[in-house]
């Protein structure tokens, strides 16, 4: 799609040296790596807590911790995974690294703001961690009032931490929107953007529009705790359900901050490894925008049993069904891309196919939950836990893993070990289903979520689930070794090891400081496999 670039010896990794040069870097690629280090560290922590939860749930009653410790670990797991891993995971790490390369730009539009947003994440996370550990916050990641107003003092700081992390998200989104509008290489029209860019664009719109609502809501909680103004606490004349509305007005769109970029990654992986142009480019691009738009009007499905009016419940059920349509379009278009392709099965592709498998199950169970008459039974049970893990872990984490392996040669200029990468796929994929499929059954049987203890009839399914979780844990540990091994000992990577067609593969691996020695000139779409 563009002329091949001159290869140079200097690249962004060896341009300058020392920790200080990293901490003050303005290069989007280095900032992407700073995010990678942060997100992987948080992920290991959040994963460790998940393992502990599954040990506790291996048997009813007390296994290794008491109820209040369990609730704290559950809060740690949820808060870390949502605010520090899945939200920044793909946009801020992979997006930061790939987006300018994808559109043929030297960097993002505001490199200083880009660095600032990383510091926002680190500052917010530090505040949250400090309080989570010191004060034993036990509200769950949803901070529902009035519980969060009455419980331990730490909540104020955790909420403040999430507030600061929110700015990281807003600034990244803003940066991406401006970058996509203003810094595209000559010839890179909107209809020639790779689908990952379309996904990041839709995500950025949600980040900029929705995150301020969360920020305001969290500030109101802090104000209520510190000043005693009565907004959410009925003892002061407030309404706790109002908090649920505010919270989900952000947190439902946030679900798409988590999944839309993953869909973008999967579009890249499927075309690259099928060596075939994407089926229905415009439909996939537009469905990202469609999902982003509709996502603002479905928050009420989290309040089907909370006491909102029945009419509201029915309207929200209807709108939620509409989100299913663009999602179905994407799925079918990916499958159609495989048709008459020339498919290879390196580990990134395995993760993309795994994504399709798990995301489809997450999607159809989402429709079941959107059906209001059935949701009344499933609401707040393990069915919901299973559903959103299929979407968030089966979807987003599979895409992150696939994306890391896919862009590994570009990011580090080295190859990872393909055999062990496939082993991680098998362990994570199998372990995932063993963990979460039984939770659908537990939910149907009526086991509520966030339960420290459970009735004896739920024991055997919980055991299976725990064993599955430890399998996933093993898979991710091996993946960590694959990454570190590739980083230190991997074979030198070529410029374009997968034979893919997007712009980042036309520059050297790893790319030079400003990405391209000669500004690329784009003459065709991103997936011209003819």
């Amino acid at each position, binding site marked *: 799609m563009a002329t091949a670039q001159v290869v140079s010896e200097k690249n962004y990794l060896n341009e300058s040296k020392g920790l200080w040069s990293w901490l003050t870097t303005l290069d989007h690629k280095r900032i992407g790596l700073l995010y990678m280090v942060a997100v992987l560290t948080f992920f290991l922590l959040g994963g460790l807590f998940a393992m502990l939860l599954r040990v506790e749930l291996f048997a009813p009653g007390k296994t290794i911790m008491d109820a209040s410790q369990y609730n704290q670990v559950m809060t740690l797991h949820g808060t870390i995974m949502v605010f520090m891993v899945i939200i920044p995971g793909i946009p801020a790490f992979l997006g930061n690294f790939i987006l300018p390369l994808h559109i043929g730009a030297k960097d993002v539009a505001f490199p200083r703001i880009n660095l600032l947003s990383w510091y926002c994440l680190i500052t917010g996370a530090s505040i949250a961690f400090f309080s989570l550990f010191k004060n034993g916050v036990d509200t769950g990641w949803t901070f529902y009032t009035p519980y969060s107003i009455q419980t331990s003092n730490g909540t104020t700081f955790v909420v403040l931490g999430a507030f600061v992390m929110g700015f990281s998200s807003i600034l990244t989104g803003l940066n991406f929107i401006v970058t996509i509008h203003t810094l595209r290489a000559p010839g890179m029209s909107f209809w020639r953007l790779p689908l990952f860019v379309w996904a990041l664009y839709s995500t950025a719109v949600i980040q900029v529009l929705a995150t301020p609502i969360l920020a305001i809501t969290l500030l109101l909680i802090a104000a209520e705790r510190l000043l005693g103004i009565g907004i959410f606490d009925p003892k002061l004349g407030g309404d706790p359900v109002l908090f649920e509305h505010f919270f989900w007005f952000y947190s439902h769109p946030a679900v798409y901050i988590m999944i839309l970029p993953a869909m973008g990654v999967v579009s890249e992986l499927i075309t690259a490894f099928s060596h075939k142009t994407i089926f229905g480019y415009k439909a996939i691009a537009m469905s990202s925008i469609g999902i982003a738009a509709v996502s603002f009007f479905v928050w009420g499905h989290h309040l089907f049993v909370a006491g909102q009016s029945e009419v509201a419940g029915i309207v929200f059920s209807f709108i939620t069904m509409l989100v299913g349509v663009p999602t179905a379009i994407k799925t079918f278009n990916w499958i159609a891309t495989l048709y008459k392709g020339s498919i290879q099965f390196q580990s990134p592709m395995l993760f993309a196919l795994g994504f399709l498998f798990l995301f489809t199950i997450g999607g*159809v169970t989402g429709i079941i939950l959107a059906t209001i008459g059935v949701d009344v039974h499933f609401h707040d049970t393990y069915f919901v836990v299973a559903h959103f893990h299929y979407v968030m872990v089966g979807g987003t984490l599979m895409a992150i893993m696939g994306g890391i392996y896919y862009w590994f040669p570009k990011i580090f200029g080295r190859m990872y070990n393909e055999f062990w990468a496939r082993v991680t796929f098998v362990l994570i994929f199998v372990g995932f289903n063993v963990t979460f499929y039984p939770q659908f059954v537990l939910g149907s049987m009526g086991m509520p979520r966030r339960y*420290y203890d459970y009735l004896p009839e739920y024991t055997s399914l919980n055991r299976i689930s725990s064993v599955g979780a430890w399998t996933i844990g093993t898979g991710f540990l091996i993946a960590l070794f694959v990454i570190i091994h590739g980083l230190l000992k991997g074979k030198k990577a070529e410029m374009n090891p997968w034979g893919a067609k997007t712009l980042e593969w036309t520059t050297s691996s790893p790319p030079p400081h400003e990405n391209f020695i000669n500004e690329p000139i784009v003459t065709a779409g991103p997936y011209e496999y003819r």
Partner: protein
Amino acid sequence: MSLATVIASINTLFISVVSHAAGGSFMPPQGTKVAEKVDSLYRFLAGASVISCILVFASMCIFAYQYRRRPGVKSAYISHNTLAEFLWSFIPFCIFMVAFAWGWYVYHDLRTMPKNAFEVHVHGQKWNWTFEYKSGRKSAGELYVPVNTPVRMIMDSADVIHSFYIPAFRTKQDVVPGRYSNIWFDIEKPGNYQVFCAEYCGQGHSAMLAKIHALPKDKFDEWLQNDPYKGLTPVQVGEAVFKARCTACHNATAEKKVGPGLQGVFGHQVDLEGGDKVTADENYIRESILYPAAKIVKGFPNAMTPFLGQLGEQELSGVIEYIKSLQ
């Protein structure tokens, strides 16, 4: 094992999983008519889900195998196909609309409160459920209702949000402080049904359980007229109240739970937060039950909801006598 037996056993497993998923037989036994309606809708949804998943997975696997990379074979260049794309957005849309309309119909039944229902007040608090009947009778943790009678629960919470969930009736409703919420059911057969708290409410959330006992009408009327404490000594009254209201947080032994274990407390010195000490006499225990925040025992959170107005004098002095007896 030969390949054929492996395939055959995988096939049997698969069919049983599909029929289970599609048949909804993991759901608890149905206690009401509405539960049957919910289950038929769920069978439709599960069936449609299983079929669409099989379609997606099968085409994915077949294409992946059929079009694996082979030397000299190039991929086809297919940019889109308007008819196919229209069909695979329109057909799911129609299925979603059926699900939506059917869901609405079932939800209408779940949420339309019957007129002339038998009414019971429900109070949720950390971490137990209490029930108050119009006859003046109260019960804790055990709800007694007549069968074949529509029952409406009028629910409130003394502290944080709880949720009243009866899996056998396929219904739940959040219990929100500061307002009343409603739930109704009409039980078909006498029996016992499990109640859970489904909204996270703190340490005792998973212990916030209750049982519904559905009795034939005559038995229920008899129960309603009974004095539950008739012929009991104060210690026995206290023990009954303690088991229903206190065990989510307190042990009758010395072992601590959310709050202190109560064995051997009476008559002894108690260390308070802030360094004060107090001797546990009748007045101290009474105050700790009615106004728990007044004196916090060292090393414990201020987590107890006040019981002021919730216990009758007979029950309160019963509990105090019971705690005295734990030596």
